[in-house]
């Protein structure tokens, strides 16, 4: 196992930033911690790096307990959001800094920095100062500084946040390629669920210091454990409607939606009582537009993106729903349409937000 956290906790005074988090990150995988600001994802990363002391639990890297080990001895390297390059040193000196501190032979330093520079296409910039480079190049230097240390685990703390949208997409691809090339375990923190979906083998969704769900991106997308994960993963976000279970036939339940005569059906084996108040979640691409019967909505705004369009609609009771359409280019602004969904794509959540399967 690359990294194993067992019941890890972190408190700052009376504030509990991380509570009883356990997870396993396989060797060589690309794990992403994702969640809203203040959810504890960066704290967790910094605990793995050794920059924050764990208040409880155990952290192991390659089956070695590193909970009380100094950061430099954990065989991890970290890439920071603001790069944290040493501005008075050249790119070469930045990348060689840790090797020189460790008093590695000059030949080895040159070889390792050279190899990292080749991977990151930084060879012609080695004598430049960070201030002479663009944001993307600086980020590559920061990654290069991590590579030369040949760590067991790479840690990335929102490394693309300071880059513009186009460069971010480019760097995302470069990181994916780099991961394939190096085959090392990488842990990446972001609040951007698109970054998480595109980069990760495993996503760990966090909220208020708790791990909400872990798994491959598409499992989290298709089969979320709770309302938070369902709402956080996916863009545009999942639509939620307050509903009540009105009937059951085998594993299929009928749900009436507040403010609408049209019932939805869902696949659900959970034995919740008839009459229970629940919430249903349907992704924008799973809502079908048709004529009655269906949930009547008025199209407020239609965003046409060419290959796909997003309809921002409103029910009679004022509830907003986003619908994704593919292919059709009919202008529907201001019109009344009816929405329906395949029962297998209607997810049901109980009052506490837990998924009912």
């Amino acid at each position: 196992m690359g990294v194993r956290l067992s019941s890890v906790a972190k408190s700052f005074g009376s504030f509990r930033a991380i509570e009883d988090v356990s997870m396993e990150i396989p060797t060589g995988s690309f794990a992403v911690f994702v969640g809203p600001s203040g959810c504890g994802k960066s704290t967790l990363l910094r605990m793995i790096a050794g920059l924050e002391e764990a208040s409880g639990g155990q952290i192991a890297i390659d089956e070695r307990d590193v909970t009380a080990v100094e950061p430099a001895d954990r065989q991890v390297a970290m890439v920071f959001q603001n790069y944290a390059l040493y501005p008075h040193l050249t790119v070469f000196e930045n990348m060689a800094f840790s090797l020189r501190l460790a008093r590695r032979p000059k030949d080895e330093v040159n070889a390792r920095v050279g190899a990292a520079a080749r991977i990151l296409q930084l060879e012609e910039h080695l004598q430049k100062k960070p201030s002479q480079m663009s944001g993307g190049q600086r980020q590559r230097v920061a990654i290069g500084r991590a590579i030369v240390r040949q760590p067991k685990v790479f840690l990335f703390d929102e490394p693309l946040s300071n880059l513009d949208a186009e460069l971010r997409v480019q760097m995302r691809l470069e990181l994916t390629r780099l991961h394939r090339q190096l085959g090392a375990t990488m842990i990446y923190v972001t609040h951007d669920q698109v970054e998480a979906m595109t980069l990760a083998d495993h996503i760990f969704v966090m909220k208020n210091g708790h791990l909400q769900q872990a798994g491959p991106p598409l499992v989290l997308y298709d089969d979320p454990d709770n309302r938070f994960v369902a709402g956080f993963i996916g863009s545009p976000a999942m639509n939620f409607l307050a509903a009540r279970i009105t009937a059951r036939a085998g594993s299929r339940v009928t749900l009436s939606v507040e403010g609408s005569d049209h019932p939805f059906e869902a696949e659900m084996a959970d034995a919740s009582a008839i009459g229970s108040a629940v919430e249903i979640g349907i992704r924008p691409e799973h809502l079908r537009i048709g004529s009655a019967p269906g949930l009547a909505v008025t199209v407020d705004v239609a965003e046409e993106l060419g290959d796909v369009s997003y309809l921002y609609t409103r029910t009679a009771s004022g509830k907003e729903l986003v619908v994704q359409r593919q292919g059709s280019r009919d202008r529907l602004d201001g019109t009344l349409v009816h929405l329906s969904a395949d029962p297998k794509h209607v997810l049901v959540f109980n009052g506490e937000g837990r998924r009912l399967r």
Partner: protein
Amino acid sequence: MSQIQSQPQLRRPAKSLPRRIENAVLSVLTLAAALVWIFPLYWTLVTSIRSDENVAGNTSLLPDEFRLQAYVDAILNTRLLTWYFNSVGTAVIVTVLVLFISVLCAYALSQIRFPGGGLLYGVVLASFMVPAQTLVVTQFILMKDLNLINTWAGIILPQLIAPVVIIVYKQFFDSVPKEMREAVVLDGGGEFTILFRVFLPLNWGITTALAIVTFIGVWNAFFWPFLVVTSENMMTIPVGITQVNDAFGVAYARLMAVAMLAALPVIIAYIIFQRRVTEAIMISSGVKG
């Protein structure tokens, strides 16, 4: 060309008449203040190149003589070179020690969490508010008890208290992003590596500026060296000037020659490091940093 002509709004607007008058008045006032400031220096120079007989009653503003005899007398008949040596020695040592001690103190206060850290910083701030003169008697007794009267150590030790240097360094270290420190920690560096290989090189300008201000301050210091030194061999230049009267009687040309020689290093340092000195004064007076 036609494009430029078609965009007259891009041209700098001409200054209005009241604005030009205001600028002219300010320029005249600045020039007048500069003349007032430089006049004593000029008068010292003019007097020092006259003969002593030609000094008394001579009110001519222009140099009417060019003699270096006063300088020759000052160098040959006083212990000026010894005083120079003492001044350079004590000023260099104080500057190096003040910077070294202050940088370590400021780094600890800024970057290391330890019990009583806040209280210690409070003490540093409080010491900033205590006038040096109030400490003189205590310091003199202490130096006497330590048998340090008439020694370099006696001149140097009390001048090592420099809270302003600590405060300026602490403000600088506080402004360095914490990731910089963490990057060094992950690279395997300790506190001394962080301080001397990363933090200080981030901005040598601050260290240079503080070094200049400290050096000039110690070079010009009169009160404490005057108290702690009675032996002519241990005097610094500002104290030594008081001995010139004893050596020559009332001999203004020679007195002014010694004063010019005393001020020379500071004048040269100022000319070379003009921009840095201005920065240093702004930093240490809290305008910037």
